[in-house]
Each structure stands twice: as structure tokens, then as C-alpha cells.
């Protein structure tokens, strides 16, 4: 079976240490986290973790079953048909000339300039992870100075 990436949406009690419980479970059971995003939901006492994991069906089932045993975990869903989005902040460019070219690429991707320096520019972009990947690839030749990706967030379609 292939090591595929899967997106888990996990509802947890917004208690002290809940993130530690979840991440500790992943590390001690040798499950591999590709990305993890945690934030409050519409209910202030409930958080939603969006976790991207790699593994075959056996690993995925284990992850789900082991997570369900944590007292603070309310629900684990393996997302199949979902809107997935990621946000990136990225600063690139070494000269004013670069900056112009970068802005052209940004326009193609509808990325927004959020901070402009003498030689470089910081952009923000939200989109599907694949789009973010290709955006980064296009900026690489200009020299990426720093960047941060939010990790995937996702919600199931109706």
C-alpha cells in the first residue's frame, strides 16, 4: 500500500495541554505529522485541529482509533471531499528589478503585497496547497529570504 497524505479534521476540547496530548500521541506511536493547524471553532470551548499525515490505510485507521481514545478528543474525521486551504507569508527578491518581476507573478496568483522593502517584497497568498507549492517554486529564482506556511486548514463540503 502507498504512503499517501491524508487530511484529518479533529475536534478537541479546548483544555490545557490538549495539543501536547495529540502531538505526544503522534510522536510516541511513530505517526508522521506533515502539518498541524490548531484554532478555535465557532464554540469557544472546542478547537479544531487539521492534521496532515502520511501513511497507508492501516496507519490511518490506527491514528483515528488512537486519537478517539484521548479523553479530550470529540471527533476525528478523515476528509475525503473537502475544501483545503493554506496561507503563506513569503519574502523574496534581491533588487528593485526582481521586485517588479515578483509583482507580476503575484498578480497571476492574486497574491497580495503586504510589505515592501528596498530590494525585496513580502507577499501573502491563500489557496490550495498545490497552488502554494507552485507559487513558491516560481519565486525561488529570486531568492526566498523567509517564509511561513500556515499548514492546511480544511472543511468538508456539504
Amino acid at each position, binding site marked *: 500500500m502507498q504512503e499517501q497524505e491524508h487530511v484529518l479534521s479533529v475536534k478537541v476540547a479546548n483544555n*490545557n*495541554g490538549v495539543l*501536547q*496530548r495529540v502531538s*505526544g*500521541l503522534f510522536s*510516541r506511536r511513530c505517526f508522521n505529522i506533515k502539518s498541524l493547524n490548531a484554532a478555535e471553532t465557532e464554540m469557544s470551548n472546542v478547537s479544531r485541529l487539521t492534521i496532515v499525515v502520511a501513511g497507508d490505510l*492501516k496507519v490511518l*485507521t*490506527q491514528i483515528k*482509533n*488512537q486519537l*478517539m*481514545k*484521548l*479523553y*479530550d478528543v470529540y471527533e476525528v474525521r478523515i476528509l475525503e471531499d473537502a475544501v483545503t486551504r493554506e496561507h503563506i507569508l513569503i519574502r523574496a527578491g534581491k533588487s528593485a528589478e526582481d521586485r517588479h518581476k515578483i509583482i507580476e507573478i503575484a498578480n497571476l496568483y492574486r497574491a497580495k503585497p503586504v510589505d515592501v522593502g528596498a530590494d525585496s517584497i513580502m507577499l501573502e497568498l491563500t489557496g490550495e496547497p498545490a497552488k502554494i507549492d507552485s507559487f513558491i517554486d516560481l519565486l525561488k529564482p529570486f531568492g526566498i529570504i523567509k517564509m511561513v506556511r500556515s499548514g492546511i486548514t480544511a472543511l468538508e463540503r456539504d
Partner: protein
Amino acid sequence: MLLSGSDIIVECLLEQGADTVFGYPGGAVLNVYDSLYKYSDKIRHIITSHEQGACHAADGFARATGKTGVVIATSGPGATNLTTGIATAYMDSIPLVAITGNVSCNLLGLDSFQEVDITGVTMPITKHNFIVKDVRDLADTLRSAFNIASSGRKGPVLVDIPKDVTAAKCEFPRRETCCLDVKNTYTGSDLLNNINNAVELIQSSERPYIYVGGGVISSNAEEELKTFAELCDAPVSCSLMGQGAYNQTDRRYIGMLGMHGTVKAVEALNSCDLLIGIGTRFSDRVIGEPSVFAKNAKIIHIDIDPAEFNKNVKTYIAVPGDVKGVLKYLCEKISQKKNAWTDELIAKDCGEPVQRGTNEFPVTPQAVIEKLDELTGGNAVISTEVGQNQMWAAQYYRFKNPRSFISSGGLGTMGFGLGAAIGAKIGCPDKTVVNIAGDGSFAMNLNELITASAHNIPIIEIVINNNVLGMVRQWQRLFYDKHFSQTTLDNRHIDYIKLGESFGIKTFVIEKNEDIEPVLKQALEISKSAPCMIEVRIDRDLNVLPMIPAGTPVENPITEIDLEA
């Protein structure tokens, strides 16, 4: 009524039916111990020599009685001393509530004296844990702790309580004492398919083999198991944790399955066409090499924890649910089977190894444990340490009742047995309780002899003394070219009689076969009113056999080791 946090703790313990607790006082739990003092006519507290011993005692109490064990320790080192005990309970799914004190809330996070983040430390070894920072949350948190510990797949829960919370007062409405009955219901409606498929498969199988784990004991399902085995007309094996779940004097019982299980169990495993695993997690110590485990059989796996399905072995049909409920359902659906294979297997002589003494050390653990079995009618509660002593106890005592074999199966904690025996005896004062130890494990936590003596807890401590760490030595002989690295304990020169007697514990020595019966009889007599100890001197090269090396296919177990080789 307005009560302090520490009074609320004791009130909650009483509400949960916990009238016996184990522990060790200290700075952060001074308030709690003040309340225990006030309530001393209602709740019994046993102080041990070390928090680890207290935790093992609470664990042994839980294993022997089925109730939730309670242990109390102070902050910092008191709390960290519990961790081995908590991890032991966690690996074996034992219901335990550990209450630790901590520094006051305003000192948390400041590296204060005797401060440790025990909820952080114990996260991977508890079913759940809490820190209570507001006295108004205390009672409900403790109630949740008991509920979590004793429901579903059981396990330890830790509640960390800062000192100021134990001093703060709040309104406490007393509740009726609640008895948390095990809920033996099976309501897996969407899984009805699975269970009905299981019925069909069992009905059509010709060579069904039942393999039982500790889950049958925690679910109190021994009656249902007996009926089920009869209906299936199947041979039965227990895992180490399952010892006692099935009456081992019954004809269907063919011995333990696993690394040191019987040859017959291996034979059954490889020739069955259906393996029914009940309340077991298919530990690596049983399955060896997973890809060829039960290679000719389909596996039905019944367990309360769905995370165990397909974790270690591939399951053909998984039936999630409380074992008792599932077995009840199965018993109603299955019509009486008759399998020729079962009778053949039971009658077959598979050549189980027999222990032989030497000229210098004629006594064998087999002879001692079999005599103990005979003299106690198989009705004693036997705790063990870890290593050869543990395997010999499991192999040679014929357990008839659940909750009579108390051993650290999952974690393999040397030093577990003595504390556990103390807890078991306190939980079951009318039963004979014997801890079977090796000299290595004994030395780890022998301080708890003081507890047995001080509280006059009449257990029998049997130290099987071979002056080596026998199980490790056995592996060194087989796999490390007989490099007996750090496993020879000849320099210790312990005089067990003087040692025991310095604690006020009558001690005997067995060194000849003629000693076995009279010494055991005397010890059993003394143990009606006081603890005692027996040193059994054996040869250092007695091995635990049969043996299947770790991670190898479960076939052709080693039944003889050539000492000259």
C-alpha cells in the same frame, strides 16, 4: 456544606466506595493528610516505604478486587516515584486513580521547591490526567477520574492538585455512594454484521482455538467464556495477563500461549483453522513474527478497544465491545459444536519440558510451585516479580479463578510483585496471597517488607534465589555467546533469614526437596496471621522453557538448552 479541598477529596473517595488508599505524605499533601486524619475511622490509609510501592499496592488491590485502586503522593519526587507504577497499570489496563499534590498555584511554573509538571510527565502513561486549579472543579474532576479509570478499557488517571486548592473552601453537596458497575452491554448496532459473521465462521470452523487475554478478567466474563468454550468445543489458552480467566484444571485448557507458552499451544496455533482472540491485544510477546502468526487460521478478534484491531495482527473479523456482552450474545447464537481435532489435540503428548535440579541444587521452581498449587488447592492469589520467577509462576501454578494471577505483563516491572501482593492481601484478606520473586527483583523493592511487617499484612514472599538475573542470563547464554554481563550477583551474600528477621518477618530456606512440603505448610500456617518469607535456593542455569525467541515465528519452540554448548 462548606468544606476544604482536602476534605472534598476524602469525601469524593468515600463517595466512590474507596475505603482503602495507599500513599506517602509530604509537604504538598499536608492538607490531604490532615483530612485523612480526621476521617481515619472511615478510610484506611496504608503508608508504604516508597511511593512506587504504594502505587504497585494500589494496582495489586485493583487487580485482586476489581475495584479502582487509589494512591496518594506529594509533589515533585513523590509524584515522579509513582510513574513506574502508573506506567505498569497503564500497560495492563488496570483502573487506578493517582492523586498528587503540587505547589500552590501562584508558585506553579517557577521551579519552586518540589515542583514537577506531573501531568506533563504522565501524559503518555495515563488514560487521562487533570490538574485542578479551582476548588470548585475538584469534586467533579475526581468523579470523572474514577469514571474514566473504571470504564471502557480501564486504566490509570492522575489528578494533580496544588496545595492552595486543597486548603481553599467551597460548597460540597454530598452525594450517595455510587457503585460503578461494569456495564456489560453490547449495543454495536452497526456492527451486528460483524458479530453475525463471527457466529457463522465459528459455526463452520472445524478447528477453532480460543486465545484469552486480560480483557476477560477486567470484564468479569469468566462464566461466559466457560460456556462459550464448551459450545465451541475448542481448546483454550490464556496469555500471561489472561491467567485465571479460564480454569486451568479444565480438560480444554492447553496452557499459556506465547514466548514461554506450552508446546501444545504452539501446535494448536499452527493447526487451527480459526483463532478467536478474546480481550487481548496480541502482544509481541505472543505473536512473534506477525506475518506468519496463526498462518492457517482466520482470526476473530473481540475487544473493547477498537484501536487494537489490526494493530499487531491482521484480523479477519473484528468485534468491538465489552467482552462479557459479546460472549453472552455469541453464546445465545452458537449451537453446540463437536470437533474431532479438539479431542485429538487434548489427548496428544506434545513433549512439554520438565525441570531437573542438580546435585548441588536439587530443588526446582517447578517442584516448589506445583507443591504450592497442591497445598493451596489452586485458590491462592499469586503475584510475581518479572523474569524467570514470573514465567515459572505462570507455567506451574494452575490458576482456577480470575484475579488470582497478579503480574506486570505489559511493562515488565521488576519490583512490582511485593507491593502488589500487599495491595492484593488488603483487598482480599481471606485469601492466601503469595509473591513469587526472584532474587534480582526482590532486591529492587524489598523495602516493602517493612510495610508488610508494620501493618502486619500476612503475605508469603517466596524468593527463588539463583544468585543471577536469570532471564537476562538465559538470553545472554542463547544470543550473546554466554557473556554474562552484569547478571551474576555472587558478591551480594544476602542472608535472607537475618534480613527477614530484622524486619520481624519469619524466614525459611528451602534447599532440599524434603524441605519443600514442610516449609510451605509452615509458611501457610503463619500466613494466617503474619507475613513470612521463604528463600528457595536453585541452580543458576535453570532456564524458562519452552521458549520462542523474540520476533521469530511461533513454531518449534526450544525445549532444551545444552549447557555445555
